[in-house]
């Protein structure tokens, strides 16, 4: 399996960041950065990373299944995550979530037919004072209203 030179250099730095014999420590960061490039945690990827940190694929799989950001299936190019946890809920985050589902015609962890946008109802993202909050891939959007969300979704449809 081949990765971009940037990812390879990141892997190299990560593997040197922990005490000797503790390469396994790089596992979670390596998986997340690799997922950013590959799109999801594929069997091939698990095997590759397992080899690099000295684990078996099943040991890696055990870790993958624990972390909510690591996913075995690809999502949309733009993954729209809407928080409905308590501080967002008090600012109608649940209504925003319903609005997004209606607008896109998809549900939780589903992808639009063109594969561009996926939706996820997420737990607290640490944007509680600027609720309701939305994250598109890694970008935060604060104080989101249904109108702002419509504009955002429209811009994602047009975006390269």
């Amino acid at each position, binding site marked *: 399996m081949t990765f971009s030179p940037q990812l390879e250099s990141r892997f190299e730095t990560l593997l040197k960041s*922990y005490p000797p014999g503790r390469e396994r420590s790089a596992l979670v960061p390596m998986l997340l950065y690799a997922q950013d490039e590959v799109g999801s945690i594929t069997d091939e990827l698990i095997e590759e990373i397992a080899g690099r940190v000295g684990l078996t694929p099943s040991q890696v799989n055990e870790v993958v299944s624990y972390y909510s950001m690591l996913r075995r299936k690809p999502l949309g190019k733009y993954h729209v995550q809407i928080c409905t946890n308590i501080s967002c809920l008090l600012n*109608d985050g649940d209504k925003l979530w319903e609005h997004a589902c209606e607008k896109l015609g998809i549900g939780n962890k589903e992808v639009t037919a063109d594969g561009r946008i996926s939706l996820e109802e997420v737990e*607290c993202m*640490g944007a509680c004072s600027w609720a309701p909050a939305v994250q598109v891939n890694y970008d935060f959007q604060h104080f989101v209203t249904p109108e702002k969300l419509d504009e955002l979704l429209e811009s994602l449809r047009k975006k390269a």
Partner: protein
Amino acid sequence: MLYNEPSPLETKVLSRRFGLPDSASLATYLATEGYQAFLKAAGMKPERIIEEVKVSNLRGRGGAGFPTGMKWSFVPRNSPKPKYIVVNGDESEPGTCKDRVLIENDPHQLIEGVLIAGLAVDAHAGYIYIRGEYRYLIEIVEKAITEAYAGGWLGKNIQGTGFDFDLYAHTGAGAYECGEESALLESLEGKRGIPRIRPPFPAVAGAFQCPTVLNNVETFCAVPAIIRDGGAAFAALGIPRAGGTKMTCLTGNVNKPGVYELRLGFPVMRMIEEVGGGIPRGRKLKALIPGGSSCPALTAAECEGATMDYDSMAARKTMLGSGGVIIMDDQTCMVKAAMRIMRFYAHESCGWCIPCREGTTWLRKILVRFHEGGGTRDDIDLIGDIAKNMLGRTFCPLGDAAAMPTISIVEKFRQEFEDHLDGKPCPFEHADHKWDKPPSLSPGWDKPSGLSPDDSSGARILNG
């Protein structure tokens, strides 16, 4: 960048550089007394550094409130093993968004705090663990670390002091549980974030089974000011037994939500009214959770006379916690609030301890059904009973974190549960919302399973 206007009522110690041009840069940091505390600490005996932190009355800012100086003093000085400093930047307690602001606006303050901790316990390497969702903060921290190495503030023989220190950023990948210190260490070692059995505590066997100082981002960020201005000066900012300031996140139903640095002991009602600008749409306060969703809720009456500090909150049987204040107005459905909080803990329970794994799952099911109108009178006591049976029966505090707010809400807002009985719709569902849209069941949530009120008692489900 800052996401909210500062308040004139703030006491800016940790946030003193917020708003300066390029506040995250090494140049700005150095121009504003940056790294001076490290140089001062490098000339002090390690015991003296720890003593100064003890004098400051600094207590852990992540939620537990353990005295920081004491925690550092537990690290065995003569251990032949390497020692580590680990920063808990897994901020994921609902209602909390302060570490994010500290790292984003002043990453070098955090690095300096870590270096001083390194001097205090003779550690020469550290890790800043940041939750996966905060990817942009990883970039900010990595940039600051690179700058610090280039400027001679990290690496070998830092500024000619003879002290070596290497620092690394480490991303998580989505798990609330990893905010618990021993689960964080497991995660740092590339494993599932499952809590460790203690003792031994991290001070003795932490990262890589070596002695480790593990503190919250805000705790480390307070250390440079303590060394620079003296522990006594920091202590004097707060109240006895709780020194300094607290980064406080105002969230929920409040006119000016935001992160504010307030002196410990700041009056709760003044915080809502004057810092937060009061409650929107002329509504009244119904309930307040002082420090993230795992703290028991206070009624409006209990908030009168309360102050934002460990003892005042303990006297009201709740906690200062992480400083994530959740303000709920008179149109908030407390059953729904309890249900949403429980959904979170059920989602995040790592599954290691049965009382937590099963307790959160069953409470979620019962609370969802209850809020949808399928509750029975017996459920009300059942909810409290299940929650009480989780308390103190798990390896880590997640079980308690789920149980405590639930118990408080059932006890203090029992009438609201009664008002949902007999298939009655939620009395608050038709309160006007910000965007005035008719409510409906949210997809992806647990839907009522078509049980009639008769056969839907939690006890039957538990037995069946």
